[in-house]
């Protein structure tokens, strides 16, 4: 089973290698990993997509929690969540394929971010199925290069009863 883990960790030297080392050292699988600092520059958020049965995921969660540089670990896939991934796809285009490439990009609301006489570079953002779908469609044209960011995810805010919702938002500080 696939799980998306969201980690809050110290933004410091060595923290990433600790996480990577834990996965490789214990034979856990990393499907994708993305990391960047948060509003608080001393803290990073990391999204890891991994898979394993319930026992393995329990161990992964516990082992991650044990890493001193990790402040918090949440298995996002246990709740309702949104996920996004961006891909840059450089497609090889023969003159007769160029219209087709643009048409596919359009269907997926993807942007052409670079163009040359023989290629388009297409940027697409969406959940993993959407990204995979456009890749599948572009593949027959000939994909020269493909770079994916890895998935990022966030839990959805729980929907509260109407009157609670209409209350003024607490000031964030």
């Amino acid at each position, binding site marked *: 089973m696939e799980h998306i883990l969201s980690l809050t960790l110290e933004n410091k030297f060595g923290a990433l290698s600790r996480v990577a080392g834990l996965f490789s050292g214990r034979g856990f699988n990393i499907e994708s990993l993305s990391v960047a600092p948060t509003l608080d520059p001393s803290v990073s958020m990391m999204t890891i997509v991994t898979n394993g049965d319930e026992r393995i995921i329990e161990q992964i969660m516990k082992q991650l929690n044990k890493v*001193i540089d990790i402040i918090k670990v949440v298995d996002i896939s246990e709740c309702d969540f949104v996920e996004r991934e961006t891909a840059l796809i450089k497609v090889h285009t023969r003159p007769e394929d160029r219209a087709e490439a643009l048409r596919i990009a359009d269907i997926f609301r993807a942007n052409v971010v670079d163009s040359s006489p023989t290629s388009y570079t297409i940027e697409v953002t969406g959940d993993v199925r959407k990204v995979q779908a456009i890749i599948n469609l572009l593949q027959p044209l000939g994909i020269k290069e493909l770079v994916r960011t890895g998935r990022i995810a966030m839990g959805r805010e729980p929907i509260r009863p109407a009157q609670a919702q209409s209350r003024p938002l607490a000031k964030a500080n």
Partner: protein
Amino acid sequence: MQLTGSEIFVEALKREGVDTIFALPGGVVLKIFDVLHQQKDIRVILTRHEQGAGHMAEGYAKATGKAGVCLITSGPGMTNVITALADAYMDSVPVVAFSGQVPTALIGNDAFQEADNIGLSRPCTKYNFLVKDVKDLAQTIKEAFYIATTGRPGPVLVDIPKDISMEKGEFHYPSSVSIRGYNPTYDGSRWKIKQAADAILKSKRPILYIGGGVLFSEASAEVKELAEMTHIPVDMTLMALGGFPGNHPLSLGMLGMHGTYVANMAMHYSDLVIAVGARFDDRVTGKVSEFCPKAKVIHVDIDPTSIRKNIHVDIPIVGDCKRVLSELNNILRATVNGDQKEQRKPWWDQLNAWKHEHPLAYEQDPKGQIKPQYLIDRLYHLTSDRDPIVSTDVGQHQMWAAQYFKLKNPRTWLTSGGLGTMGFGFPAAMGAQAAFPDRLVLCIAGDGSIQMNTQELATAVVEKLPVKVFVINNRFHGMVRQWQDLFYEGRYASSYLGQTPDFVKLAEAYGAAGVRIADVGQVDDGIREVLSIKGPVFADVPVYQFENCYPMIPAGGANHEMLLGDPPDLKKPKGTHPTGVQADSDTILTA
């Protein structure tokens, strides 16, 4: 107060109550050694190899409960200490290691004696730090000791570049630390503890299975109270020996691959396993699918990752063993009714039957060669009134020591369990002796293992660490030979050591005493002679070469499927010559 990094280092160590460090200098740590040289509060024990320094720090830590400290140089100093760090990590020993590093400006340039100390040590430390600014040094040292000694203890490395040790900075030692990603859970869930108490009262065939965690959390008294109050038998792991008195009527001895028959049978047939500070290691569980098939499992451990890693647990309790058990004892004290001894009688009848069916046993021919078990058994009886600290190396002798040395007190047993590091015993004994100069410290070594760290004889002599080493000399990597006997049709591939050194002369060459105990009739006198010598001693004890260690659960076997002696079809050469190396080649040829 403005101090150099080296002065900050020394001041910080003093604030941490460090009285001894094990160290070996080199270019990038000279300034630190220079400052250490000019003070008297911290004793610097110069070792002959960094692995020795690491194991001595471990021995010191295991015997005292305080962090053991070592200081080594960059590059080869660091790579040499790795084995000891890995050992400490596996056995949860609080060690703080300080390594020198090339100057900050040179890091990453393949400078002379540069190694990626942080990268090298990451998988074998609980945490590690590279100090990049002298301002951070004091805080880092505080955090290093805090991390090493709290929660599930373990080794921490602090890497100090040369320039940091020279530069000046303001010295301010923090009085406390808090690390947002590190908050060990000490108090177990009350609700779970209540459940555990209920399960204990309901169970018919309970067994307490205690591990090294009992020692780190100083929970021996609580274990004893629990066992006595409920009349539950106690199994100990290799790491837990001394955590419950080995000669207590409720003790079943060690469990696991070379555990006693009764200890393993009790686990297999119990209906409730109460695991405390143990981690269900594969040397204990044997075949996981057949482990304790009828039992409910309660597991108390401070490290959540130990729980449900290898086996299913019904009542997991994350917390400090001492606190959880005292809470559990409080509940039980109020609820236990009736005579527990009477209620547990059917279980104890069964246990006693197992005990008598297959007690630990060996045969000593009064005129034959010394059996290794006999030597260890006699050593135990002749020293037990002195409450010795006992260290071991790794191999058959280690298992026999675990079986026959019935330790009474915590922190008297130093052995390498998780990593199984040959060469651990001698330096670990020295580390303990440095902490307790007046106590009797014994090392039970194998002739193979001891050769991995004999250079520390020089340290023992110079630093006056009078450890008594008994080399159980079978001219074999005995444990390897045993597996070859059982699983490789007796083909002794690279397990025969051939000419072992003359350990008596070796000791004497270093200025230590050497004694040979070669005759069965001479064993008691020989041991007494060794004990009467003031300084460090190597006692060379040539033993029967082909003795195998039983009971044994073959790797992957279930716990009730023990080999209790050599299989009848095993062809075993009968060594005839009591001392002679000469005899060995003959016996090998006939093997």
